[in-house]
């Protein structure tokens, strides 16, 4: 009765909108009467309505924001309230599945968000790299900065399937195939949904997790805002293997006996100018290893001396170390990134247009990239109930260069595997167009030491081109076009019910054109190993044109219903979706050279050209629903269900249903007068289904060959897989629990999550005895479990008028264990490349991703077994542990002193392994530092044993008795590759890296006088990326940028960049 009386006394109805300091609405903010019980919640658009008495003080609060008190006085009944965020990384709403914004209180699973602002602090142009170390449980497998146009992949919570499921990127609801299509300047917010509990509503494509990107949009009624953002950075080579600088090119076990001949002797028939070289030692030019003589500056005949027409012709040079020859090969890269965006909103519309122009010059000679991003986000109120909105983005990207980091590529594939340490890169650069007597490109790797037919010997290299000559002549261009967008019509049927129909499209074409001119064919290595990205030996001049076209469409219809009935809130979302993916690829390539030199047309092919086309269409239809029931804003129950029908599963068995249920309890509502400002406990159980089969995988098919034999057709594909006709969709079942705590008015925030997820019925392609006539059987058999813990900590230790300090820290540990493969086998292959390399395997009872080597050192009680000669005894199929880390994480610090902002991000990984083919070859070829180290007698290991040289090897003999001896370095290091001993080329991938640092200054525009009327915001900052690899085992390779995720075969180097950024807002 008292309440009623009071209510009668309250005589004003106040309405308003709660917005944040940027003017964006704050949904679900709480509006309470100070010292009273009455209160309401704002809706999703920040609008509220409350009945109050004159003079009442309202407390407006929202999680992640500083509370604000508003006194109701005066005549106006409209109170628009701006609240300030207390900590940028804690917010009130999260973007959940299907892009639906939800109150953070109601989600029963972990969602971690990061603002676009923080992601772009150092102006990283690639989203994947920008995410490194910022989200708990996100592991970025990056790619070296020298490889323009390629980007890394993201692994969330380790792995839960046979394959290394990648997270998907969803931009404003539309799935994007490649993260590089996302313009960082358009990103407003990134939310990461990690497990089935969060992603179940996204369905079968989301088993690897979802990264939801919300782009910037204009608000209704907003004045014109123009933002200009310009960044220029320079890049330098960052990581290179540690080379030895004592011994030069050659191949001899004894460096004292490593000259090709003691002295060059002129022979009749050789060019008369060579007489000048008589009596000077020759190097073993043809052997591309560095087991040569000691580099003491003594005179020798360098490779170029045999060719006329330049400064060094017919002259000796000093045989000296070139410690920086590889570093000098890489040029300084330059990136410019200019962005302009306009946004404005009227009474019934809002729109934003952005344009970004990115140019890059790579550190690899002759490589560059340009990229245009055009995007627009618009919304129109057709009537008060009908809203049309659209987001469209176009990306045009062109890049060129040779970025191959495969084995024996012409840059790193040579430098770190097959090279001479005495080569002067400056001379190589200068003589990039030097020709042999018959007009070929000259090379350091002269073909034959035999000199029986000298005119032939000096015309073609043994294996390698001069790397500059290769890059000058190879023309490798990629053009990409991506059009992505959506158009939606939303109709508000009643106050509580909204129906939205959306069409989404993601269209992407890539055209790759490779032109390999005749000069490279003519100048190729005589042994035909001049491997290149085209993978042919011998090298033929070539034209290749590959086109890929990918079209993904979604037809989506969603109904949303929300209602408050006394203390209960009901929120229902339901709908259906049709996903349609079409892939049309075609590739054409000449064979056996070109008839007319350097005319790059497919019809100019010397032999029958190769043509291939791939058509591959799939469809998934889905019905889904979620219901969230809230009680008094502190207890929420979430129920979801989804049914998918996949075209790739057997007809009649292509339907699969999966539900989820969760509870969220905001217990802080019951804890008064404590430092705890927010406390939430959440538990959930969820399932998610998936359809990992490729289209048409169920069919046994025979493909007609692309190259007929004469006029007779043949086949290019015969079935090698036996497919079970009873394949069904595998289902993951996950349990998740979490706790979120915030203290001292959100100055400290902690979130912890535990999850345990099992995939059953995984479709495995299990090897079967090839004597069956097949190589593999495809069945539902696998079972994989993953479980782990994720922690986040956000602290704002200092907040004062002039100085603020923000720290956030995240950490995650995950274990993915293979429980079952099939009845036939307990092993499946995840990755395999060359025959002599380890494979990455899933092995029952062990962590996913075991490095399994064809051979390893035999051990007794952990000690290596060696023979009397000191060489290792081996055993077959040795496991070296998983590629998955024990834990990953990152630390972000930001200091703001009077508008000067210094921020730095570190990320780390502990555990996990990778193998390095470069390291193996670098040892085999005597290139790396350890092949020329000083031993425990103080003598270089390369020197003869009699003179105290040799590698000191400790181990046990076959009978287990300890034994140690000295082994010639040549024998020691070469045995590793010869016998496939991988023990010493598999490295711990643990690292700690200072990835990003930026120092910015917010220019106080208000002090700029008349300019301040036009310039609203201005800042300038210095940005640096990949600054310092603080710790890792093998410093020659950055373990956060492994070329093939598990391994590398000729890794291109990473880059370190430094730049300046200017931002102006009008």
């Amino acid at each position, binding site marked *: 009765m008292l309440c009623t009386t009071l209510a009668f006394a309250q005589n004003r109805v106040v309405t308003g909108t709660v917005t944040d300091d940027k003017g964006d609405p704050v949904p679900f903010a709480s509006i309470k009467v100070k010292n009273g019980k009455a209160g309401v919640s704002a809706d999703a658009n920040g609008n509220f309505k409350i009945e109050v008495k004159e003079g009442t003080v309202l407390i407006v609060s929202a999680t992640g924001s500083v509370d604000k008190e508003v006194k109701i006085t005066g005549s106006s009944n409209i109170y628009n309230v701006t609240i300030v965020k207390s900590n940028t990384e804690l917010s009130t709403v999260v973007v959940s599945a299907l892009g639906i914004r939800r109150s953070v209180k109601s989600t029963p699973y972990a969602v971690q968000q990061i603002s676009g602002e923080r992601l772009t602090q150092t102006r990283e142009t690639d989203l994947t790299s920008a995410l490194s170390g910022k989200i708990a449980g996100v592991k970025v497998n990056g790619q070296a900065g020298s490889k323009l146009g390629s980007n890394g992949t993201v692994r969330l919570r380790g792995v839960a399937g046979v394959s290394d499921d990648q997270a998907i990127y969803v931009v404003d609801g539309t799935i994007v195939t490649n993260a590089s299509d996302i313009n960082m300047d358009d990103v407003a917010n990134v939310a990461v949904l990690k497990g089935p509990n969060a992603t179940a509503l996204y369905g079968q494509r989301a088993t690897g997790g979802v990264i939801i990107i919300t782009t910037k949009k204009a608000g209704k009624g907003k004045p014109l805002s123009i933002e200009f953002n310009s960044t220029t950075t320079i890049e330098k080579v960052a990581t290179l293997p540690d080379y030895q600088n004592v011994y030069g090119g050659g191949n001899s076990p004894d460096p004292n006996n490593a000259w090709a001949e003691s002295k060059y002797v002129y022979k009749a028939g050789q060019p008369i100018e060579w007489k000048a070289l008589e009596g000077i030692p020759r190097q073993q030019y043809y052997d591309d290893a560095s087991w040569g003589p000691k580099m003491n500056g003594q005179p020798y005949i360098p490779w170029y001396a045999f060719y006329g027409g330049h400064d060094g012709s017919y002259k000796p040079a000093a045989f000296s170390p070139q410690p920086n020859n590889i570093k000098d090969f890489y040029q300084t890269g330059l990136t410019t990134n200019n962005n302009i965006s306009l946004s404005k909103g009227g009474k019934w519309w809002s729109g934003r247009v952005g344009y970004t122009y990115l140019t890059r010059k790579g550190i690899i000679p002759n490589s560059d990239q340009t990229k245009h991003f055009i995007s627009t986000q618009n919304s129109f109120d057709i009537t008060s109930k009908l809203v049309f909105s659209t987001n469209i983005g176009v990306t045009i990207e062109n890049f060129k260069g040779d970025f191959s980091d495969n084995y024996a590529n012409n840059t790193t594939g040579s430098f770190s595997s097959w090279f001479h340490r005495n080569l002067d890169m400056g001379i190589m650069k200068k003589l990039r167009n030097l020709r042999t007597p018959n007009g070929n490109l000259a090379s350091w790797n002269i073909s034959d030491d035999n000199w029986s037919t000298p005119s032939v010997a000096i015309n073609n290299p043994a294996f390698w081109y001069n790397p500059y000559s290769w890059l000058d002549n190879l023309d490798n261009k990629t053009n990409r076009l991506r059009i992505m967008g959506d158009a939606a019509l939303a109709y508000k049927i009643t106050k509580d019910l909204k129906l939205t129909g959306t069409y989404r499209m993601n269209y992407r074409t890539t055209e790759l054109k490779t032109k390999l001119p005749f000069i490279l064919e003519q100048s190729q290595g005589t042994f035909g190993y001049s491997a290149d990205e085209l993978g042919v030996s011998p090298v033929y001049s070539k034209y290749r044109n590959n086109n890929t076209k990918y079209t993904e469409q979604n037809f989506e219809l969603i109904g949303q219903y929300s209602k408050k009935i006394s203390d209960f809130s009901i929120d229902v979302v339901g709908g259906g979706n049709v996903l349609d993916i079409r892939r049309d690829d075609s590739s054409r390539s000449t064979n056996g050279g070109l008839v007319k030199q350097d005319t790059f047309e497919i019809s100019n092919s010397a032999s029958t050209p190769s043509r291939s086309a791939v058509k591959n269409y799939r469809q998934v239809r889905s019905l889904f629903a979620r219901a969230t029931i809230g009680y008094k804003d502190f207890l929420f129950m979430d129920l979801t269900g989804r049914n998918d029908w996949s075209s790739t599963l057997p007809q009649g068995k292509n339907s699969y249903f999966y539900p989820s249920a969760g509870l969220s309890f905001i217990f802080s509502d019951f804890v008064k007068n404590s430092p705890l400002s927010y406390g939430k406990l959440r538990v959930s159980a969820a399932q998610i289904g998936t359809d990992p089969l490729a289209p048409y995988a169920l069919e046994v098919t025979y493909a007609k060959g692309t190259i007929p034999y004469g006029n007779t057709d043949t086949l290019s594909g015969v079935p090698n897989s036996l497919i079970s006709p009873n394949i069904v969709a595998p289902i993951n079942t996950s349990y998740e629990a979490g706790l979120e705590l915030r203290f001292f008015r959100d100055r400290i925030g902690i979130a912890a999550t535990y999850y345990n997820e099992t995939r059953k019925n995984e479709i495995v392609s299990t090897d079967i005895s*090839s004597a069956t006539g097949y190589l593999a059987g495809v069945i539902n058999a696998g079972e994989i479990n993953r479980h782990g813990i994720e922690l986040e900590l956000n602290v704002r230790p200092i907040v004062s008028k002039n100085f603020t300090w923000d720290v956030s820290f995240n950490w995650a540990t995950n274990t993915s264990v293979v429980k079952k493969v099939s009845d036939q086998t307990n092993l499946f292959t995840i990755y395999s490349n060359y025959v002599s390399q380890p494979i990455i395997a899933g092995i029952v009872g062990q962590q996913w991703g075991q490095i399994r080597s064809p051979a390893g050192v035999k051990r007794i009680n952990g000690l290596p077994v060696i023979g009397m000669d000191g060489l290792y005894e081996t055993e077959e199929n040795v496991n070296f542990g998983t590629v998955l880390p024990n834990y990953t994480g990152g630390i972000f610090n930001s200091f703001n002193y009077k508008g000067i902002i210094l921020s730095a991000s570190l990320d780390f990984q502990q555990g996990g392994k990778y193998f390095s083919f470069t390291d193996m070859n670098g040892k085999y070829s005597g290139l790396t530092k350890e092949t020329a180290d000083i031993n425990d007698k103080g003598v270089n290991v390369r020197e003869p044993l009699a003179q105290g040289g040799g590698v000191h090897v400790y181990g046990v003999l076959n009978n287990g008795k300890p034994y140690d001896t000295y082994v010639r370095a040549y024998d020691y290091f070469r045995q590793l590759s010869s016998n496939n001993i991988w023990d010493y080329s598999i490295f711990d991938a643990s690292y700690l890296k200072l990835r990003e640092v930026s120092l910015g200054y917010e220019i106080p525009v208000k002090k700029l006088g008349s300019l301040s009327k036009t310039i609203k915001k201005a800042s300038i900052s210095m940005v640096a990326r990949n600054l310092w690899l603080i710790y890792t085992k093998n410093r020659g390779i950055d373990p956060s940028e492994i070329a093939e995720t598990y391994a590398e075969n000729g890794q291109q180097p990473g880059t370190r960049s430094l730049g300046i950024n200017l931002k102006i807002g009008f």
Partner: protein
Amino acid sequence: MKFKEIIAFTLLIGVLSGCSKFKDEYLHNPDPNVNTTANTSFLFTNALVKSCLRGNATTVNGDLLTVGYKEATFFVQYFGQAIYPDDQLYQNTFGEWSSYYSGPLMDLTTIIEYNTGDKKTVAAANGSNNNQLASARIWKAYLFSIVTDRWGDVPYFQACNPSIITPKYDAQKDIYYDLFKELKEAVAQFDGGAVFKGDIMFKGDATKWKKFANSLRMVLALRLSKIDPTKGRAEYTEALTANGGYIATNSDNVSFPYLNDINYRNPWNNNIVNDEPIGLTSFFVDLLNYSNDPRLPVYARPSTGTTYAGLPYGLDPAGIASWTSSNSYSKMGTAFYQQNSPGYLLTASQVLLTRAEAVLLGWTTGNAKTDYESAITLNMQQNGITDANAINTYTTQASVLMNASNVSDAVKKVALQKYIALYPNGIEAFAEWRRTGVPALTPAPFAVNDSKMIPRRWGYPLDEGTLNAANYNAAIAAYGNKNSIDGRVWWDKL
């Protein structure tokens, strides 16, 4: 229910029932070049191509099944390696057989199945069922003879059968007996009907197929000379007079018809590329020089000027590097590695040498010396040497001349001539070397295998030990429970 609700409900049911049905383009590959039924013609061309061409080149032998298989040429010391000489040191102790089984052997099995089962009528569009069956059976027998000669006891009767996931290993004896039966039956199966369209080997010429089958039967029969002479003799004599005859002239020599096209080139063109650092061994060059063999300038290119010198065989990397820094060596003759050079699988000289041996063994009557000399003459002609005087000078010198009354010496001479004539067919030469012990070869001095001896067989593929464990374990029991390359196959009797 209200009318509206009924409509909504009906719509929902309609949507749900329609959800599970997809249009054809999502269920079946829309590419017109991809079919769910095999065209037996394409399949046969594919089987022949895959048997004789080089597939992926990432390993030393790629997918080589017959012609150009390098490792065997190192074992019999036709060739040695001049740079990175690891493979001639018997480093690869096991061999991968998936290229045979899941390649042409499966294709041939499918052809046989199509021509005998319910797809018989469809298959007949590519030639009479019998002609298809006969050709496929002969080629399958040929490939299986190589498989069993390389590994010994191998899956045979249960192989290439998707309903048996772990096929049993059959005794080589049983396999050989069945190969004889297959060859015999296949020869009788040609029916004179429409020729097999995909037959790029003999273009449907049944006589050529018969000659190939009968000759192969003779070669395989002679392989039993030590272990099972009774069966060997019976098969040999029957094959000798079988319908269709055997390969007796060079025009009947069997080679895959390689094209002057990089896609269908002789594997030696790929192996040698421009000048891969492999060369004839000094053993082989010396052997040819010893008898002033006129084939030497065809088999090899001069090392310097007009002289021929071989590579010292079986040195380690350092040894060979030091040798090559001051010496030159002879490489394969140009006639052998052009894109369209023939790569012989079975030749008249090879068959005539089996005839000479069969006479010497008393299996058949005839004149061993005449056969022997004709075989040499045919092989000289095959190599472009037509000067009768030069051939006569060669055959009449003491080291070559046969004295048929000295049987053991005559048999050795036949074997030696076969060794020379088979060059560069390493797989067949390796089988014959194992059977005859001729020529006497010295193992690589720097061999890296356990026994340091020349291998007697290839080890089973390693994954058989896990994927087909019980059968694999039963098979290696014959080699002391070790997947040993020193173990001998059934016919390889001490």
